[in-house]
């Protein structure tokens, strides 16, 4: 009796191990951003690239919608998406864009914005890229769309184009 019991236990143990391995194999291991959606932006504090002003998550609560955009002057796709960001703030009044300048030099960033226009209501510096990593960024350009309650509605990886812009329009209607 005791023998039979231990047999069942051992076989059960082995089978559950192997089947979990099997399930693990079928799972997609690549990084997936869908986990972020529905989550909240939690406390952060960043300094402006122009002066010593600080921005925290409290400031974002004043905006109906905020798009947090990660960019750098050395990033070619950021140049491509920039005109869509300008378009976005010109056409919609209920959204503000927070720019986070990723691993960049302040002066280069300022030149970049002078040249292409400044759609941001605040440009924060992130010289070593650590703050961006805390936002769950793994490459730029990337953008996170949040609402008044700081809940993440959408995460865009790669440059924003016409199609993605229209999607943002739909989401903030």
């Amino acid at each position, binding site marked *: 009796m005791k023998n039979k019991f231990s047999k069942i236990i051992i076989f059960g143990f082995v089978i559950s191990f*192997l089947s979990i391995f099997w399930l693990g*194999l079928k*799972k997609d291991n690549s990084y997936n951003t869908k986990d972020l959606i529905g989550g909240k932006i939690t406390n952060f504090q960043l300094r402006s690239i122009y002066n010593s002003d600080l921005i925290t998550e409290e400031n974002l609560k004043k905006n109906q919608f905020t798009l947090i955009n990660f960019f750098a002057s050395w990033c070619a796709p950021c140049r491509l998406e920039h005109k869509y960001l300008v378009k976005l703030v010109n056409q919609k009044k209920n959204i503000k864009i927070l720019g986070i300048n990723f691993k960049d030099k302040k002066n280069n960033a300022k030149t970049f914005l002078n040249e292409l226009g400044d759609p941001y209501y605040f440009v924060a510096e992130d010289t070593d890229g650590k703050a961006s990593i805390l936002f769950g960024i793994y490459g730029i350009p990337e953008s996170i769309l949040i609402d008044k309650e700081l809940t993440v509605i959408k995460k865009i990886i790669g440059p924003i184009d016409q199609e993605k812009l229209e999607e943002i329009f739909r989401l903030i209607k």
Partner: protein
Amino acid sequence: MLSNIGSILILSVLSLSLLIIYNSYLDLKNNNQLIKKSIYSLSLFQITFTILSFFTLIVGFIYSDFSIINVYENSHSEKPLFYKIAGSWGNHEGSLLLWINILVLFSYLFLIFNHKHNKKFRLYTLIFQNFLILGFIIFLLINSNPFSSIYPVPLDGLGLNPILQDPALAIHPPLLYIGFVGCSIYFSAAIASMLSEYSGKQFALAIKSWVQISWVFQTLGITVGSIWAYYELGWGGFWFWDPVENASLLPWFAISALMHSVMVLEKRNTLYEWVIILCLLTFILSVTGTFLVRSGILNSVHTFANDPSRGLYILLFLSLMVFTSLIIFFKKRKKEIYSFKSSSKETFILANNWFMVFFLATVLIGTIYPIFLDVITGAKVSVGPPFYNTVIIPLVIPFLLLMTFGPQSSWIKSKKETLYKTFYILLGAFIINSTLFYFFGSFGFYSNLILITATFLILHSVIDAKKSIKNRKTFEYPRIISHLGFGMLVFFIGINHHHSIETDFNLKVGETKILYGYELFFENITIEPNKNYKSIIGDFKITDLKKNYTQYLNPEIRVYTNPETLTYEAAIKSKISSDLYLTMSNVSRSDFYNIKFQNKPFMIWIWISAFTIALGGFVQLILKKNEK
């Protein structure tokens, strides 16, 4: 051309395996005392063809035959010859061929070296070993064939990942494979032993040397891998509790337990069942490790084959192995009655086994917990050093004590006096410890205890060594050497952990930084073209302000062309007492370089200790050879 030769050779090995299984099966029914001559010849052909197939692949790499996909993907015509050769096993397909080579090699060696043992037992071992060989050859043929060809033939190859272009890493896989795949032979032998009822002391004698060989190679393989991580990965550590490192530790714990309990089986003819379990477990854990590394189920520096179909095959094979061994085990098990005196050597060895099983369970849980959690709840976590340190460190203390006490005891029943004597030494050590802790309580309670117990083990091993040299008890050398090595390892890791200095800062050419009594002067940057990469070399002058002693260190940033990658080469000055460790990385779009400066005491001694542990096993093998 080479690709055809290779494929034909592999197919011949496959058919030879089938023939060996068939012939051995027929020979089982034969009442003759000796194994048929034909089986020997078949095995000889099998090993020859296997080795030839591996040579064919190496030749393909040396002559850069890019019609072979594997060469195209992992080599490049401009690569130095040494790394061309090492490249043949630095990738999934090639390493699988190496794996098969070792399976066949051990199968052959076991057949010819164990001629004194029971015929039935040897034949069953051969049959099961060839089932393993078959399984892996089929795996190789269906989705990991190193000889697959490509047409049209590409002009040049893609190159080997530069981080793998390192001498330590060229020998790391062969060493580990001999260690891990070597376990296969006593997996087969364990099943054979149950089926042929060739058990007890005889079985212990049949597998003992094979256990020691694979243990030595596993120990060396893990050490070399760790040395590689220290020199190449450039963050100054040597053990990261990375899932793949853990995967290599799991069989090592099982095999270390096995190595001890097989002695009990040999001397006292007991613990047979437990030895069988460990034999089976060691190879099962090796294959589990392979599964974890090769399937892409875990992410780590070692995942060089992210292909779920490979994982699925290994998993199927693993399940087959586990169920076959479990079913045979439950069918054939015999109840054993254990009667150990609490102070006998058997009890201490059993205690070692309990500790090993505990360490094994801890590391196993830490390694697969993230997979389980991901599958069940979808949450992603990683288990890091804090978990292992918290669970393992406290247990290292009694473990070290038992390592000191255990060998002092005798078989069956010990004299009380010897045990009392050792107990007094321990009491002394404990008093010294408490005093030290009281005066210099800088380490924390556990660390202090660990250092003292390690010292205790080292001292005791030295005293033992003196005694056994005087009394010419050569059979004790291996144990003393390995235990001494382990004591040293724990001791030096402890010291290293507590006295390492590590800082990170940015520096421009021409600037000086003063820290922890060192002055760092960034003199210059030079750019040097090399055969397959370009180096950016920093010249640093480091002055020890206390001793007024200057050294020059040159960390490098390498820009490899094929494939295009950046690697950071640490500059390391090793001395007997400590290592200076400097890495440099570029800060994008700025004149600054990010510098990481470390001073790590007794680094070399950690390697020496690990090699000493392995040395014990070597000495044992040599002594055994001389006995005959």
